[in-house]
């Protein structure tokens, strides 16, 4: 049976609900944030079935939540949020995904587009040379066992200690780039071996380093606080924990599949495998996930350092790039939320969803406390990206979360059927966007038409009150693996 419009109850223009009565094993309702226009696209794949499955997780509270960029994944949909009771509700590695702490960092330059325009092609070539990209490609940093454990414990801070970052980078990174619960001992040797040589690499797929120009500012005060102004050149880095994170998820999902019977957990999909957060399996996964998340923050810090080297080589050492913010979109965190009228801790799973905390939150840097947390939403290569700010409504409706990107609408194979990589490159070049890539077929898979319209997604996020628009970015150069 398909899930369609008839199964949805309209709560408001941008909020829809699949009631708990829809299926007998649902423990909570499922909520979808989208405009009515976006719904037919969402019905096309298995996203909402996956969301209904998430609603069956033991200990889930509030609702299982889907963002407007939702698309089918495996287990959880991509673009999903689920919170469970702390400390005995379940933690589900599938609710974070294999690319633990995949996320985005945005760097600010002090150059405006007209001043930088003539040298952006040269910058892009240099970025491509400086930053290793592509499938399984190793990096320039090789870590011994002790140093890798330090990175797993201290994340971006360790990179700063090694001279690859500064205090402001850490200040402007979610959780200061370091989750304190990291347990390197819970990370297998296989995972460590896969990650050891991959620090400072972006990988393949939809990961990229992109140079953008601020096209439009919507909220002057927030933009000023974030350091954004029209025509300013900025750089987005999109990557995660690479092979180390993939292996951590694989190892622990396998352990949880075995453990579920012990905890009397029955779920409609093995990929949702979970264990009580407080159980040995739950704690081992949380410690390993936190270590992988730290590795990802160290990775984006290392990539930012490589970006700075390329930038300074082109524009001179006096031209600096500063971090506006670095944010995760595949992660689980223990956070405090108001649940049934009281403030309680919850285990918040975000898979393809971004934390979007409101003004005043003590979790965000002081400089941003009046405006709300910066939320960076990268669009597809060649379309626009957005910087948003978190809101109080997001705390009430989505455990302080917003969307994470445009969201795929067409399969990779489907995109390759429609267009060749060479054509995508030519079209982007004709629009003034420089492209450097190691894989033309990968370029076709990431063609802009393979994604939903980013403007529709962000309009729905703003319409639902989950975040408000601060600035619109237009891409001018991209490198991808």
């Amino acid at each position, binding site marked *: 049976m398909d899930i369609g419009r008839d199964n949805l109850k309209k709560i408001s223009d941008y909020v829809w609900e699949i009631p708990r009565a829809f299926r007998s094993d649902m423990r909570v309702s499922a909520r979808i944030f989208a405009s009515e226009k976006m719904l037919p696209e969402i019905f096309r794949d298995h996203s909402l079935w996956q969301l209904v499955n998430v609603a069956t997780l033991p200990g889930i509270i509030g609702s299982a939540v889907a963002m407007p960029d939702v698309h089918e*994944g*495996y287990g959880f949909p991509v673009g999903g949020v689920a919170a469970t009771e702390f400390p005995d509700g379940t933690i589900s590695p599938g609710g974070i995904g294999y690319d633990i702490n995949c996320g985005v960092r945005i760097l600010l330059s002090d150059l405006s587009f007209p001043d930088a325009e003539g040298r952006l092609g040269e910058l892009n070539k240099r970025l491509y040379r400086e930053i290793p990209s*592509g*499938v399984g490609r190793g990096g320039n940093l090789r870590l011994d066992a002790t140093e890798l454990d330090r990175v797993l414990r201290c994340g971006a801070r360790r990179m700063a200690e090694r001279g690859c970052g500064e205090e402001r980078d850490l200040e402007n990174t979610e959780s200061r780039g370091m989750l304190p619960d990291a347990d390197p001992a819970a990370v297998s040797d296989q995972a460590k071996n896969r990650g050891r040589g991959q620090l400072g690499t972006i990988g393949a*797929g939809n990961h990229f380093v992109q140079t953008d120009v601020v096209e439009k500012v919507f909220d002057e005060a927030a933009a000023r606080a974030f350091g954004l102004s029209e025509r300013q050149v900025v750089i987005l880095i999109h990557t995660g924990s690479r092979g180390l994170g993939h292996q951590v998820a694989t190892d622990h999902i396998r352990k949880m599949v075995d453990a579920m019977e012990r905890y009397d957990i029955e779920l409609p999909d093995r990929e949702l495998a979970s264990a009580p957060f407080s159980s040995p399996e739950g704690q081992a996964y949380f410690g390993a996930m936190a270590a992988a998340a730290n590795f990802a923050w160290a990775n984006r810090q290392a990539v930012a350092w490589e970006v700075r080297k390329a930038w300074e080589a082109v524009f001179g050492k006096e031209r600096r790039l500063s971090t506006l913010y670095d944010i995760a979109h595949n992660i689980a965190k223990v956070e405090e939320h108001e649940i049934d009228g009281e403030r309680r801790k919850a285990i918040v799973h975000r898979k393809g969803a971004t934390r979007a905390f409101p003004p005043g939150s003590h979790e965000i840097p002081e400089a941003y406390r009046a405006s709300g947390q910066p939320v960076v939403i990268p669009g597809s290569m060649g379309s626009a990206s957005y910087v948003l700010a978190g809101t109080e409504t997001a705390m009430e409706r989505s455990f302080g979360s917003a969307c994470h990107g445009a969201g*795929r609408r067409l*399969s*990779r194979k489907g995109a390759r059927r429609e267009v060749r990589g060479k054509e995508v490159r030519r079209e982007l070049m004709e629009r003034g966007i420089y492209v450097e890539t190691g894989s033309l077929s990968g370029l076709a898979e990431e063609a802009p038409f393979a994604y939903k319209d980013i403007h529709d997604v962000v309009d729905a996020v703003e319409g639902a009150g989950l975040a408000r628009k601060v600035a619109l970015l237009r891409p001018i150069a991209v490198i991808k693996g």
Partner: protein
Amino acid sequence: MAYEFIEHTADIRMRVSGKALTELFSSALSGMGDILFPGLYKEGMPLDTERNVSIVSADPTVLLIDFLSEVLTLSYEESVVFCECRLEKVENGMLEATVYGRKVSGFKEDVKAVTYHEADITENEEGCLETVVVFDI
């Protein structure tokens, strides 16, 4: 080989079948190799790497996913595309196999993981064993 790729919005969904578990597992391994490096494997081509794999899992479906995951990890650790296998034992939740592959300087596709999502070995109308396997890419 008895595998085919079917649509998935973001990842790769493979349908695989075989007359018996040994054939099903063998075809699934070839299919995964075909994702990592399309077109690399041709029947009869020389393979330069062999590794032994032993797995214990709850049931045949979990065993298949755990087997593919284990081989995927080996692939990344050693830069090898594994395309063939000899299964000494696939029964009662236990697998013992020798996998054969070829060293490569890089992969064409970044398979992050083999997932349990939708995997369920059942008998199809032709009397063959069949399942879907979703790969995270």
